[in-house]
């Protein structure tokens, strides 16, 4: 832009300098005329301000001290005298020369240097500017740094920014929220407004800003770039920017809430210690004691979450991984399991001893152990895709053996599941796929005759559903022949001819041992072994199997498998003196049981707006002893059906390390495993699905009696 406006500037400067000459001459006659001094200053000021912009840096530099001297004169700190007028006139000529010459790289000549020297001395002689109490902000170049340059692998820093704009900030045309847009452009931003100073509506001035903000910014930009965002408002706002500890991927865990609050100066360390000793959630305690306000707490919590997230992102990066033998991983999980159990004992013991110091340690350890547990468990999660790929080969080999054209479609290969579960799913899935190909899909000729594409499709899909993974194997084959299934079941003595079965129950017959519906036994699906094995394996995984079939359109087998076999969140309950754990993932609510609930003869209890069936666990597990008063109902949700489980007492949450009961107990219906409690005793884990399955039978029985 220089060249384009250089000439304009030159003309303008010539004009100004001509004008300046007149002013100076007039000033010589009336040295006290402030208006003249002002005019002289303005002329020099304009030239100085513009010169640098159009490539006349030399003229700009030359003018600097002259401007200072004139500024001193107009503010009364220096008198205008003949000598000054003299110097100014000479300077004026010099500026004219400097602007006329085009070479700004050349050195100042001796005369220019001498003049500059004189002005510098003269400016120094002037009385100092009266210091304002409020020091003006050091002028900075108002550069707004562009979003952080994409430097490779630059360390991220986190800044805590407290920003409380002046109440009249809007009157300066400042768009406060825009500042946050700018911050957000620098990196990852979490902001929480503090609205505690917003007055009630009747006394609220809509043109005032009552809100302050606490933000956390994680960015690769330096603190100056962050400060620059607030450059126009920092002089009249409360602004505090603190750099927090550098985040690096392998730093220790997220910051404690207490640390953050102390660090922010919101809480004194001694208050923190006292609050921690009360053994409750720190935040609640501090708010209750009015040590912190709710908004201070909220913003600290946001900071905590932000830092945790930032840390996670940082560590995501270009993820590096190492191979660990699965044995070591299993050992780790076993050890974590032991640790969880020991931790439960510690917690229990510390409660018994009632030592607050010990309790606070136990609670902190509890959080650490929970994190360690989640971490160890996540290490064992693998995408199911690797298993899916094995099935491609199975399908390929089998389809050529059977003379059928088959496409295998897989969905949700990225679904993660515990490694052990994946391993144990392999055989059942092979069985199911073999069955689909062998019995489900028709020959190409039959398919063509039925108006279907000659190539059959087997769809293998996995998806998460709460604490479970649902895996389905579907085909677009002929579907299952219910009549043939029933006939075969009768023939095999599994079913008596007069039994009335629902369609769903009839389909489940295929999972009975020794059942085969194939018209001719083939080498592929074997001799009726298979589906019963599938069911047994899925049961032992704590999962469930269901079948759907539509004649002519195909069938699908759906497996519902728990995500992990090792550690779950559980709800500990008691029936007489026996302890049981319900998986928390299925628990929906706990409520008091009234005797009218449990003895109204309907086996139904009111829950919200519904009547739901209930089962007395005391009855179900044949627990000896009389039922006490004041029992509880735990509402569980299984397969979208709610049932109530009547128990004597709900003890509370329990980190449940699942231990298998072993094959000896495979008849123990309604149990999916065991766990060791804090006091060392064993509690049994309730298989809510199994119990839910028993409901229709019971209802039938109840109706019959």
């Amino acid at each position, binding site marked *: 832009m220089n060249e384009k406006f250089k000439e304009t500037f030159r003309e303008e400067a010539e004009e100004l300098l001509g004008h300046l000459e007149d002013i100076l001459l007039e000033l010589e006659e009336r040295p006290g005329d402030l208006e003249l001094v002002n005019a002289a200053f303005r002329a020099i000021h304009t030239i100085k301000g513009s010169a640098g912009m159009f490539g006349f840096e030399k003229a700009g530099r030359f003018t600097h001290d002259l401007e200072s001297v004139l500024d001193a004169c107009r503010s009364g700190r220096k008198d205008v005298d003949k000598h000054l007028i003299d110097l100014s006139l000479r300077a004026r000529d010099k500026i004219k020369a400097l602007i006329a010459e085009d070479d700004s790289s050349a050195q100042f000549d001796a005369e220019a240097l001498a003049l500059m020297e004189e002005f510098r001395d003269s400016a120094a002689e002037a009385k100092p500017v009266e210091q304002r109490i409020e020091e003006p902000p050091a002028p900075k170049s108002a550069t707004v740094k562009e979003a952080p340059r994409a430097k490779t692998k630059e360390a991220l820093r986190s800044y805590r920014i407290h920003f409380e704009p002046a109440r009249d900030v809007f009157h300066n045309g400042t768009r406060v929220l825009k500042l946050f847009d700018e911050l957000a452009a620098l990196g990852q931003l979490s902001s929480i407004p503090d609205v505690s100073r917003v007055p009630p509506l009747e006394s609220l001035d809509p043109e005032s800003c009552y809100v302050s903000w606490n933000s956390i910014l994680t960015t690769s930009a330096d603190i100056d770039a962050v400060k620059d965002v607030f450059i126009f408002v920092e002089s009249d706002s409360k602004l505090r920017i603190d750099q927090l500890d550098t985040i690096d991927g392998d730093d220790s865990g997220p910051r404690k809430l207490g640390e953050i609050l102390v660090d922010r100066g919101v809480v004194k360390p001694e208050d923190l210690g006292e609050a921690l000793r009360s053994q409750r959630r720190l935040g609640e305690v501090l708010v209750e004691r009015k040590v912190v306000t709710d908004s201070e707490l909220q913003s600290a919590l946001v900071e905590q979450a932000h830092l945790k997230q930032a840390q996670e992102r940082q560590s995501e990066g270009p993820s590096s991984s190492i191979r660990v033998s699965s044995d070591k991983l299993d050992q780790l999980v076993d050890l974590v*399991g032991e640790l969880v159990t020991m931790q439960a004992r510690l917690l229990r013991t510390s409660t018994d001893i009632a030592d607050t110091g010990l309790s606070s340690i136990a609670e902190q350890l509890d959080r650490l152990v929970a994190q360690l547990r989640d971490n160890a468990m996540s290490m064992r999660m693998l995408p199911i895709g690797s298993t899916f790929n094995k099935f491609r080969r199975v399908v390929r080999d089998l389809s050529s053996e059977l003379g059928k054209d088959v496409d295998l479609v897989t969905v949700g290969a990225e679904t993660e599941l515990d490694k052990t579960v994946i391993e144990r799913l392999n055989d059942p899935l092979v069985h199911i796929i073999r069955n689909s190909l062998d019995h489900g899909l028709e020959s190409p000729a039959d398919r063509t005759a039925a108006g279907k594409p000659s190539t059959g499709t087997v769809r293998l899909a996995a998806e998460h559903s709460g604490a479970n993974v649902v895996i389905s194997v579907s085909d677009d084959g002929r579907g299952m022949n219910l009549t043939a299934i029933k006939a075969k079941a009768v023939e095999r003595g599994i079913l008596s001819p007069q039994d009335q079965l629902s369609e769903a129950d009839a389909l489940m017959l295929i999972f009975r041992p020794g059942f085969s519906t194939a018209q001719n036994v083939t080498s592929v699906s074997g001799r009726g072994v298979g589906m019963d094995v599938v069911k047994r394996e899925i049961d032992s995984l704590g999962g469930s199997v269901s079948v759907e079939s539509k004649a002519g359109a195909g069938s699908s087998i759906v497996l519902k498998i728990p995500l992990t076999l090792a550690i779950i969140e559980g709800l500990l309950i008691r029936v007489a003196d026996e302890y049981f754990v319900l998986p928390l993932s299925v628990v929906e609510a706990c409520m008091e049981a009234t005797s009218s609930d449990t003895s109204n003869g309907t086996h139904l209890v009111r829950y919200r707006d519904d009547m739901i069936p209930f089962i007395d666990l005391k009855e179900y597990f044949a627990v000896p002893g009389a039922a006490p008063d004041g029992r509880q109902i735990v509402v569980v949700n299984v397969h979208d059906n709610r049932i109530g489980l009547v128990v004597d007492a709900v003890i509370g949450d329990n980190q449940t390390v699942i231990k298998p009961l072993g*094959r000896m107990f495979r008849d123990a219906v309604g149990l999916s495993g065991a766990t060791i409690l804090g006091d060392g005793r064993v509690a049994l884990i309730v298989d809510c699905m199994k119990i839910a399955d028993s409901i229709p039978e019971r209802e039938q029985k109840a109706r019959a009696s």
Partner: protein
Amino acid sequence: MATRRAEPGRYLSFTLGDEAFAVPVESVEVVLETPLVTRVPNAESHLRGVINFRGSVIPIVDPRLRFGGDPIGLEEGSSVIVLQMHYEGDDVVVGMLADGVREVVDVGASEIENAPKMGARESLEYVAGVARIGGEFVVILDVETTFARLAPAECAGVV
């Protein structure tokens, strides 16, 4: 079911009621005072429940119930002999209840008799042999057979 023949070696003897029994010492892990047993509902009747053994959950089996007798009392100085055994092809650890645990004895080949002489209560197939120790007959128990699942086909695949 063929009865396995007991080998000479070291045996741990114990009592069930007033009768003496023995199991090979190498299958015994440890003998415990009977700990807190958690009952497992709906299981086979000789399975009294489970205990926490070194952080694992192991079954507690009651041989007397297997032989058709009364259950062993859990609060009256009974013991649990923790054993390694085979169960359906797997190595498992079980806790076997006993009324009393006696001693470890060496049993020579000459002391082992094949033909068991005992009351009608114990079925022959649980017996691996009979040893004459100090003028007393001790039944060497075949733990695998004793605690094997009865008629597995009946129970499999419950829908």
